[in-house]
């Protein structure tokens, strides 16, 4: 498995707007790769640069080690699932799915067999003659997928394909897409602004802000080891508190009001280490422990806010300083619930703290 798609130092400007501002990426063959970022971060532009709908201002895109410079979208080994699906309204399901095949030289009967197979793959068997306008959002999505996959592209590009679907259908399609990708073995590049979508579906994720890749990592690393405060707070929640470096050997010793003196592994320190640091911890890495337990690293605090989410409850806890901690607690069997104003004891998993330079 080698590098299938290489983006080399690509810039793209629209007038004064620098949509893609120096991006380099290597995407391995067979991967489910996500470009994640807030709207306007350049992720869709990057996808369109790979598809060939936009030409880079500078830099190059390689697919299978071939430069895509000057190669029109119709000649690239890529196919795209558009955000609004772009189903041809004047054609029925079968004609839509066969659209790209008709540009090839295979026999018509073979093509029809491929169409049936593709429709079966996406779960639309028997809808061959259905008019494109009689399709629901989810069905259009599947037609768009079948239409692209039938051409067996080297890379399938998906431009926020699930954003128009309702939550239930979206979750169903997420797992279907994942299974489909494993089944066909084609490299998928997905553009999304939904961090959970990126985390659950992808092998690798590139987080983009302002036209640049902020971090590129596996979903687990992205969540557990975000390399900046921005990435950390875009992907899930993180509490940030002030800290100060008081010593350094193979670990970093950091003093903070809430956690006291702690050791942080060098691999969990990001940015230039300066005297002042910001410490980050995920809400679920702090647990509420019974008042009776005794241990020297317990933190005591008072609940100032409670948000109930069903399977979890989030507590905002004031620890006698200006800073507050956010704690996420699973509402599982035996878990007590607390209310505003209650005094509680907390135990933070100090191994999960990350230090960022300011």
């Amino acid at each position: 498995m080698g590098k299938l798609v290489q983006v080399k130092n690509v810039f793209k400007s629209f007038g004064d707007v620098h949509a893609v501002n120096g991006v380099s990426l290597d995407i391995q063959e067979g991967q489910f790769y996500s470009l994640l970022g807030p709207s306007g971060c350049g992720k869709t532009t990057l996808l369109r640069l790979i598809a060939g709908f936009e030409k880079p201002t500078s830099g190059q895109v390689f697919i299978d080690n071939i430069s895509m410079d000057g190669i029109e979208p119709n000649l690239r080994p890529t196919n795209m699932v558009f955000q609004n699906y772009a189903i041809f309204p004047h054609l029925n399901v079968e004609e839509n799915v066969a659209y790209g095949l008709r540009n090839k030289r295979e026999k018509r009967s073979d093509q029809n067999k491929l169409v049936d197979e593709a429709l079966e793959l996406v779960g639309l068997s028997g809808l061959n003659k259905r008019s494109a306008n009689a399709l629901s959002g989810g069905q259009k999505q599947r037609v768009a997928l079948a239409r692209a996959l039938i051409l067996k592209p080297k890379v399938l590009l998906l431009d926020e394909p699930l954003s128009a679907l309702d939550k239930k259908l979206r979750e169903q399609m997420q797992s279907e897409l994942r299974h489909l990708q494993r089944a066909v073995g084609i490299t998928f590049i997905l553009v999304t602004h939904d961090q959970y979508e990126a985390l659950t579906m992808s092998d690798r994720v590139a987080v983009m802000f302002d036209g640049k890749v902020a971090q590129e990592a596996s979903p687990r690393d992205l969540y557990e080891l975000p390399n900046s405060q921005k990435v950390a707070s875009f992907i899930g929640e993180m509490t940030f508190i002030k800290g100060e470096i008081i010593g350094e050997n193979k670990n970093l010793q950091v003093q903070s009001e809430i956690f006291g003196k702690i050791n942080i592994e060098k691999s969990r320190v990001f940015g230039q280490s300066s005297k002042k640091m910001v410490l980050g911890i995920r809400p679920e890495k702090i647990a509420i422990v019974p008042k009776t337990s005794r241990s020297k690293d317990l933190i005591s605090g008072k609940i100032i806010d409670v948000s109930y989410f069903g399977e979890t409850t989030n507590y905002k806890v004031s620890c006698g300083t200006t800073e507050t901690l956010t704690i996420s607690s699973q509402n599982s069997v035996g878990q007590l619930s607390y209310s505003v104003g209650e005094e509680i004891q907390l135990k933070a998993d100090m191994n999960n703290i990350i230090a960022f330079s300011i």
Partner: protein
Amino acid sequence: MMFLLSFWTQDYLILDKSFTLNNYIEAFTQPVYQLLFSRSLYISLTVTFFTVLLAYPMAYYISFYGGNRKALWLFLITIPFWTSYLLRMFLWKVILGYNGVLNSFLLWLEMITEPLTFILYNSNAVIIALTHGWAPFAILPIFVSLEKIDRSLLEASRDLGDGPIKQFFRVILPLSMPGVVGAALIIFIPTVGDYITPKLVGGTDGLMIANMIQVQFSKANNAPLAAALSVSSLVIVAFISIVFVLINKKHLRRY
């Protein structure tokens, strides 16, 4: 009123109000009327064809390459309407005439040795003048239908392997058919009955049915026959229009 009139007979100054189909029999059997009907249809359909053919690229250009100047382009298209229709048709006489602009120019270029005569006072002249006069009306409906095409469909067709030409015939043209048929109707219906243009530039070879209706109403003093001719042309136009609409329906059904 006109419908009733067409079943009566004009007897010099008296209008015979007894029911008769003679006017219609005359309208459909007399060679001169048959000729005029078929010539009117020929001219009108040719004009429709060329107008749509001319208007399509213009509408296409404005829609796809107009950028943020689309409004300006559409405004420029209306400029011919700032002068009267009569004047514009009259100008074609100046352009196409024996000593007209076109002939003088071609003579000056020495591309021809004597003035061309087949360009004025016949059907060709009527076709040229009408095509020019009606082109702006065809641009608008085509423009609107092109504007309505979702641009991501064009990207999808490129993505699925179409070059620009295939893309045009597989996506753009089918999706803009409603506009094309609409434009064709807008041009066809009024041009069949046009009477100023053939009168001005048509000579005797370019006369159309409307000219005959006018003659029958006034000089020939045969209002019932004129009425019968009018009703007949109305029926013919209606019939052809319905065919157009049915073609349109076939394209629209899938939307």
